[in-house]
């Protein structure tokens, strides 16, 4: 395997190679693929047992998932796939980054919504929105500059807020020993209820509206650019790919990433090699949580600025939870997260179509759950895969084995 071949360079850019592992372990790619395949097979059985035709179900599911081009509905499906995936990739990256540092940031959900509400606020708040509105008018045909700036400000502030929300959990962890899982999960509910039960139904609701209508709508200048008319596909997918690259760069090219991964490798109780070498472990953990929160919050910004244009009263939790699955399927590598996010996005996009054939939407959730389940069983999957490969090798080269056995 030549280190400099084009393919390898490509894979390396996207982080398949985690810095200098000599023999890139092909199992890291095979395990998620096999887990997904197993999930699809078991999913088929489940559908069949429920008395429905699994082939028809899958034909509908994947036919309308946006993955397969063709048909008049395809552009819309493709757009939906990418819009959904962008958010799952964002939360997936957040969780993957924390995993790399040895922490389970289960709080991506809360950070997502903190990002969303802050982006909403700066999207409509008149001092900001008004200023950019005037700017757009003044610029005339160059109004896109105002849109670019306003959108960027909303996303940046949303990300900072989500990052701070996560960093607070990190701070509690390093200073007070609050378990990160407990800390982030608590902060999830605090964020969620503060936002949905107070902000969205109270101070951020237009006075003329009823309390069920959600917040003010963001100004046009805050909305993400649409990049494939007439669909609502927006720049979120591009931004999230940049974020994936940035995450990879952070992990594998910077001093911070070097330290984060060292901490992650030694996060088991009592391992203190990085600390003994003078790495400020506590500071890095807080920083890492901050970056992680920024990534999750980015997804929340997409939700508002790319899809809803307000914080709706009907928002339901789940983006952060989905991110856990995405990070697991993606093996916590940025490129893996991107691919896993697209896979989950496809399942969610195609799910609606299955209903036409009287197949409940939840079957796609079952497949998702099964895929994560098989990933969780990856030790077993690895074990049987290695055994299978060994048997094949023994088969291909029998004399040595027999000689040894004799």
């Amino acid at each position: 395997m030549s280190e400099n071949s084009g393919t390898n360079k490509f894979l390396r850019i996207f982080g398949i190679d985690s810095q200098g592992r000599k023999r890139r372990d092909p199992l890291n790619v095979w395990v998620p693929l096999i887990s997904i395949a197993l999930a699809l097979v078991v999913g088929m059985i489940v559908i069949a047992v429920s008395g429905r035709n699994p082939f028809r179900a899958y034909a509908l599911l994947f036919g309308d998932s946006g993955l397969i081009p063709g048909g008049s509905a395809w552009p819309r499906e493709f757009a939906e796939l990418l819009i959904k995936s962008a958010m799952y990739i964002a939360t997936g990256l957040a969780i993957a980054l924390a995993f790399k540092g040895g922490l389970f940031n289960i709080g991506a959900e809360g950070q997502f919504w903190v990002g969303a509400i802050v982006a909403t606020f700066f999207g409509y708040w008149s001092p900001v929105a008004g200023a950019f509105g005037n700017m757009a008018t003044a610029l005339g045909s160059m109004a896109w500059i105002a849109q670019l700036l306003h959108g960027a400000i909303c996303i940046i502030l949303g990300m900072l807020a989500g990052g701070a929300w996560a960093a607070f959990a990190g701070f509690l962890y390093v200073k007070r020993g609050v378990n990160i899982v407990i800390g982030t999960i608590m902060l999830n509910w605090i964020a969620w209820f503060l936002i949905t039960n107070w902000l969205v139904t109270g101070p951020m609701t237009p006075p003329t509206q009823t309390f069920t209508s959600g917040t003010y709508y963001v100004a046009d200048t805050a909305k993400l650019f649409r990049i494939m008319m007439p669909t609502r596909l927006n720049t979120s997918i591009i931004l999230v790919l940049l974020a994936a690259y940035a995450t990879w760069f952070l992990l594998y090219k910077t001093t911070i990433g070097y330290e984060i991964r060292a901490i992650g490798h030694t996060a088991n109780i009592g391992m203190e090699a990085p600390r003994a070498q003078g790495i400020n472990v506590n500071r890095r953990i807080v920083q890492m949580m901050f970056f992680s929160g920024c990534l999750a919050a980015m997804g929340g910004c997409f939700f508002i600025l790319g899809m809803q244009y307000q914080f709706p009263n009907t928002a339901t939790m789940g983006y952060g939870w989905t991110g856990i699955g995405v990070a697991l399927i993606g093996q916590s590598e940025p490129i893996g997260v991107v691919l896993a996010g697209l896979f989950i996005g496809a399942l969610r996009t195609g799910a609606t179509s299955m209903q036409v054939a009287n197949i409940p939407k939840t079957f796609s959730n079952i497949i998702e759950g099964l895929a994560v389940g098989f990933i969780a069983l990856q030790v077993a999957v690895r074990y049987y895969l290695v055994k299978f490969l060994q048997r094949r090798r023994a088969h291909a080269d029998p004399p040595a084995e027999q000689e040894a056995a004799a």
Partner: protein
Amino acid sequence: MKALEVRNISKMFPGNLANDNISFSVEKGEIFAIVGENGAGKSTLMNIIYGIYTPTAGEIYVNEQKARIRSAEDAIQLHMGMVHQEFMLIPRFTVAQNVVVGDEPRKGIFFDYTRAVREVKELSDKVSMTVDATAITGDLPVGIQQRVEILKVLRRGAEILIFDEPTAVLTPEETQDLFVTMRKLQSQGKTILFISHKLKEVMDIADRIAVLRRGKVQGIVNKKDTNEEELARMMVGRNVVLEIPRVEASVGPVAFSCHDLRVKNVRGMETVRDVSFDVRGGEIVGIAGVQGNGQDELVNAMIGFTRPTSGSMELNGKSMRLVTTAELRRQGMSYITEDRARRGLVMPYTVRDNSVMGQHLNAPFSRGLRMDYDKIAEFAEGKVKEYDIRPGDVTDTAGSLSGGNQQKLILARELSLPHNFLIASQPTRGLDVGATEFVYRKLLEEKKSGKAILLISLELSEILGLSDRILVMFEGHIVGETTPDKTTEEALGLLMLGVGVDRKVVS
């Protein structure tokens, strides 16, 4: 009768033939030692005999019957028992509970603790191993804990006992106690396999000795027909000078000093009490002491892991009492740890990535935020050659190296940091003869180049051979200071145990 025989055992790991066609047999009632350097395949072999690994090829005979050992349960069925290096004891259980765990006496559906205590007492009387059956295991000294482990194995009916480096965690006195126990077991007809790399001990206790090198049996010798030098030669394949040469160096200014230092351990007990000493450039100061007399806490304070409760600490004239590890390292401290897995290396990281940890923020290894892995690789390649770190591929993980090579990697890293004060905490623990010699040579080179070195060790020969001054630590105090030419192992040993120490000073 042959209690145990292995024939043509081989074990292949990916890319590594750990055991290569090993054959030997052990007579009933014999103490049979297996010696070899770290990574020679001793542990693999024991794990095969005990059913934890499946051999790639070969057969095992127990009591001259072909045995199929596929798991530790199979081995126990065949009356084999393993005393592990890391004890498999539950610290909060009493001795009796630990001994019977897994095969508890019952009264109906309830655990019959009274009977467990009685059984354990009877058993320990039978093999004359005194141990308090009702004591909490975690409170006992390591040597006694090991007895608990042995009792556990005996209670399961073990006739063949495997001791995997049992002395690694023991003090010299505890080792002697263990040998007394082993002889007693032998006299009761038990067969013992003793794994070690300490030649002196092997010569002390074994009847016959098998030497392993790179997975192969180099020879099986009778104890009375051999000597330490011959065994060492067989182990490393060349003559090893176990003598430590004297190196003279001119003594420079004080690099590190501490005054009336007091440190508490994690449980809040003061384990370092009023410790004062200084270390000058060009000298090695040795701290001798039985494990657990405050050395760990002293080191923790010196490397910035715990804050001393009082006293002062100075490195190159600057107060270092309240600073971080990073600051200490910037001021010129290097640290070689005995605990390579916990503190020394990030095991899943490559040799390359480990080689610069601690100086990875310095040029040329990084510029600003950006790591320069090419420069780091270049540096690591150089160090791998200079320190002969094997197998020599910088993209291998640190965890895949043998103990000796891991220690070489730590030395390479710590000695290449800009430093003038080196803390060497049990730098040869768990190392084989070759690697130990290497560490000694490096420490002496350091001394010659004018570095100040603090050596903490449990090995008296090491303290006496390397140190210019010796401090003896006992119950948190420095109870004596001497020089190697004015003392002997015996005299030091007595001081280490607090004999002749004014009790008023101590309490």
